[in-house]
């Protein structure tokens, strides 16, 4: 049986206490909410914290608030099941409801939290392996090794951002609230990430994501499409989130964000720019899909081949936009 290494488990009841515990224990400590990402990684010895600060008992972190002005604030400890089923999320932020409901399995969504999925560790099929397996290939730089096995000449780690909810939230222009030793701050969710497989988050290790704040939906339409081999269990090998704000038939504002093509969610800025001020015709959609496709650079470190995943960027972006435009999903091949 795969077993966890020993650790001390601390269970604060408030965010303040949790922040303090993290500060007290320094790099030895890690945060855990649902545990669905961290515990498998610990069993594979990718992380060996001696202290875990469990957030499950922190009441402030769970639940959905409506602070007014059409804003929706989701506690980071809210389970993915709760997010995917929440009537306001479903009605106003369809991409998020879909993305949360597309994570792994029903069981896992009952445990895993929104905050956890937003911070989910980057993945790579040279890295998400047991200690013995990684030893057999001499380890990689993300843990215990020197080089990146996907791109051995590269100075950086190319592990893949594998969150479903992050691209959806990014496309919805969400913000995250962080609590740390220096107090609270709110940053755009897009600022939470950086393109490095190891340091993929910009937040300090002791900072806690406390809340995800969604701006007023303002009539936006959003969608999330996920490429994976099976309808369950699998992480995305491509995620496409798209949010459009319309003036009648014309696109006022657009945000398209790709998941699982880099070490962070990748915004397809050029593709979105093409749409603004235009009507969503099939031709325009194809051009936007093409613009999203070109910069996408998946590497050979997930399921399915990377040329295929790149090719699917075009197909999935087009599908996402067609769905938002109310056009038939598949173009005639």
């Amino acid at each position, binding site marked *: 049986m795969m077993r966890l290494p020993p650790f001390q488990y601390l269970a604060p009841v408030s965010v303040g206490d949790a922040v303090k515990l993290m500060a007290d224990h320094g790099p030895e400590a890690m945060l855990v909410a649902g545990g669905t990402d961290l515990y498998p990684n610990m069993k594979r010895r990718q992380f060996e914290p001696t202290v875990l600060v469990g957030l499950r008992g922190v009441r402030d972190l769970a639940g959905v608030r409506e602070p007014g002005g059409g804003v929706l604030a989701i506690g980071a400890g809210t389970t993915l099941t709760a997010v995917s089923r929440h009537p306001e999320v479903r009605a106003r932020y369809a991409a998020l409801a879909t993305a949360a409901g597309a994570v792994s399995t029903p069981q896992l969504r009952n445990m895993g939290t929104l905050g956890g999925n937003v911070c989910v560790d980057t993945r790579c099929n040279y890295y998400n*392996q047991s200690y*013995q397996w990684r030893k057999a290939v001499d380890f990689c730089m993300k843990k215990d090794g020197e080089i990146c*096995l996907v791109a051995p000449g590269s100075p950086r780690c190319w592990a893949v951002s594998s969150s479903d909810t992050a691209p959806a939230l990014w496309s919805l222009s969400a913000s995250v609230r962080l609590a740390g030793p220096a107090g609270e701050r709110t940053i755009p969710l897009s600022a939470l990430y950086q393109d490095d497989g190891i340091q993929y988050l910009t937040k300090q290790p002791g900072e806690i994501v406390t809340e995800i704040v969604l701006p007023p939906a303002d009539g936006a339409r959003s969608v999330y499409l996920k490429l994976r081999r*099976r309808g369950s269990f699998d992480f995305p090998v491509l995620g496409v989130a798209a949010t459009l704000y319309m003036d009648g038939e014309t696109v006022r504002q657009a945000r398209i964000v790709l998941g699982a093509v880099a070490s962070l969610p990748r915004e397809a800025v050029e593709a979105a720019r093409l749409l603004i001020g235009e009507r969503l015709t099939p031709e325009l959609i194809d051009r936007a899909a093409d613009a999203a496709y070109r910069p996408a650079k998946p590497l050979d470190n997930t*399921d399915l*081949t990377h*040329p295929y995943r790149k090719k699917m960027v075009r197909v999935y972006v087009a599908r996402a936009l067609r769905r938002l435009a109310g056009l038939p999903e598949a173009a005639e*091949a």
Partner: protein
Amino acid sequence: MKKDHFAIIGQSLPKIDAWAKVVGETKFADDLAMSRMAHGKLLRSPHPHALIKRIDTTRARALPGVYAVITGHDLPRVKFGILPVSQDEEALCVEKVRMVGDAVAAVAAVDEETAERATELIEVEYEPLRPLMSIEDSLGHPEVRIHEYGDRPNVHKAVSLQFGNLEAAFAASDLVREDVFFYEGNTHLPMEQHSAVAQWGADGKLTLWSSTQTPHYVHRLLSRILDLPQAHIRVVAAPVGGGFGGKLDPFAHEIAACKLSQLTGRPVKITLTREEVFYVHRGRHPVLMWIKTGFTKDGAITGMHFRSWLDGGAYGSYGVASTFYTGALQTVTYKIPVYKFEGARVFTNKPPCGPKRGHGTPQPRFAMECQIDKAAEQLGLDPADMRRQNLAEPFVKTANHLTVTTIGLGECIDRVVEASGWGEKRGSLPPGKGIGIACSSYITGAGTAIYWNDMPHSGVVVRADRSGLVAVLCGATDIGQGSDSILAYLVAEVLGIEPKDIRVHPADTDLTPVDLGSYSSRVTLMAGNATIQAAERLREKIFTAVARKLEVPAERLTVGERRVFVQDDPEQGVSFPEAVVLAESMFGVLAFPGSYAPPKRAGKYKGGGVGPSPCYSYSACVVEVDVDRETGEVKPTEVWIAHDVGRALNPLLVEGQVEGSIYMGLGEALMEEQVFRKGVHKFPSMLEYKSPTTLETPEIHTILVETDDPEGPFGAKEAGQGPLLPVIPAVANAVYDAVGVRIDETPITPEKVTKAMENKRKGKSARLGPERLPVFSFPEAKIVESAFGQPAENIAVRPFASAPHPQAPHPQAPHPTLSPEGRG
């Protein structure tokens, strides 16, 4: 025998162990806990190919909580293997490792964590050797030897068989096609990880509880490996949490647990991790195939030449049998008057392949059924009609001297064609949707044991006593297929009682007569026939005793509804427990043996031992798919399968076997693959080895066809493996119907489909598949006369009068090969 004469047979009853399984009562091997039990762990090689220069266990031994550490030096230096011709394994490697995952040391400790920590403290110095990771690699580097034995350097086995004049057959053909196919390797992935508990008693006797499909073979081999008399070893097969062929070999963890138990004086449990299960493997061989077939213009096959190259992995396992199986059953499905087979199994530094559901036959079935589809198109024939045209004949021999009894394939084809709406759908579904058909046949039990002997393949004791209890003792192993239940139904039918009145005690080498194991779809037929014989012997004694009490001739008695009574005067009779009391009073202890050995029909040529079976099941399958023309994703939407099971002893269980086979076949067709990179398994996990979920599994329509085979218990044939075979080519053929591309290799992934469609759009070949064959000269085939069409010999005279019948209370014509004692 008409179906309605049966009381139990033919009814959809729950399995006798279903209740224990739904409440969590069933104790699988890892559920066993004993006082003072130690926990074991193996240290495995991180190198695919290396010499072991030094192993130092000092630090591991010094770790508190460690009871014992062993290496190969602590075991007798005996190489073993499941087949007598391939004795090439060591439980703990001493000089050399041949794959990542080879075990080199083992630890017993107070708990699993400590044992694992101790393995990390064992120092092993390796000298890496060049790893050979593919057939081409291994053939191209004969100077690097994985093993010192084999037909050629790195060639485990190379075989050639020819039956009849092939050149003449091809010359007389209107169409001769040559095609090349590749079938990727995949693994069983049972939900239960292998587990074993060993207890070396103070009396010097050893007991092993293990999740094994073959306790008898493990028993035999443990004796050799541990240098202990077989009589001092007891192997008990725990209920197996899924096998599919993955628990058929003796494994390092079983052997290590035994030795560690001896050294520590404690019971020792070793349970594999999921990753280790991928390394022990013994799953589907990756096979490259070349197939050349001649056809007449109306679609009849004139002759076939088939070549296969098997990537065997690091050890022999069942590989020689697997090799022959890639060539053995082509002739059983369709009429093939002339046939040539050449096969080679090559060693590579990967986990050994072996038998997975359908052992060696899904690969050639894929090649052959896809080729027939292509030929049908060229000849302008409906693929279903073309298959009908080629149906093999019942009760004759095949070109390669296999004796076939009943064949329900024609009815199977008719039934799936009708149920699926084949006629209306083929070629006329909307773009992206398609329908495909394929057929298959499979053995109902291997006709020869894996080691040469004249003893029964299956033995049963049925005993009854004054309590009214009937117990069935049989070495067979229930791996979820329901074999224990089948034995109970058969006894209940013969004795006129209910399955609930019967206790089945399986798979305990101390208590149960030998059964060779749960492989080759043999248990229902072999243990079933032996069970009926034993139960009928008991019934005969009961009739004699009751006849005396009732003062009627025994011939007038029958059984039913837990009574023994006069058939034409049902009021006159006794309850079953009373009848047992009468019989026990008259005869003493009531314990009766039954034995079964299959008819000896092996062809008189080298390799003729693989392929013979008492009888063969047949299946026809239609799959409808929806192919996404942009993403290439193939979604099977509906499956129709008709399976000739001879007789469905319990239709519910047969359906379950068929549905499970379809499921596994769809996984192999579309997503499952066991592949390697940098010498290691690319993704030894449940997450990345893609096993279909509820969402990938379509609606399955199962049609059971009954042919009442003379060889089977009450006419039954196998159901657990054969239905997998046609699924893969049916999917491939449906993909062609849907989008016009031929994917001649498995799995049919979305990227392959999109690539082939792209090529087609560009005017290039619409086929995606292997382009090259290895440079390899097969040994010269000794040409044997084709036995095609010769009448079958040595067919069972229905061995058992079967259901209670006053005229025939016991076997009238003993089966010629039924029991050794009957053969003199």
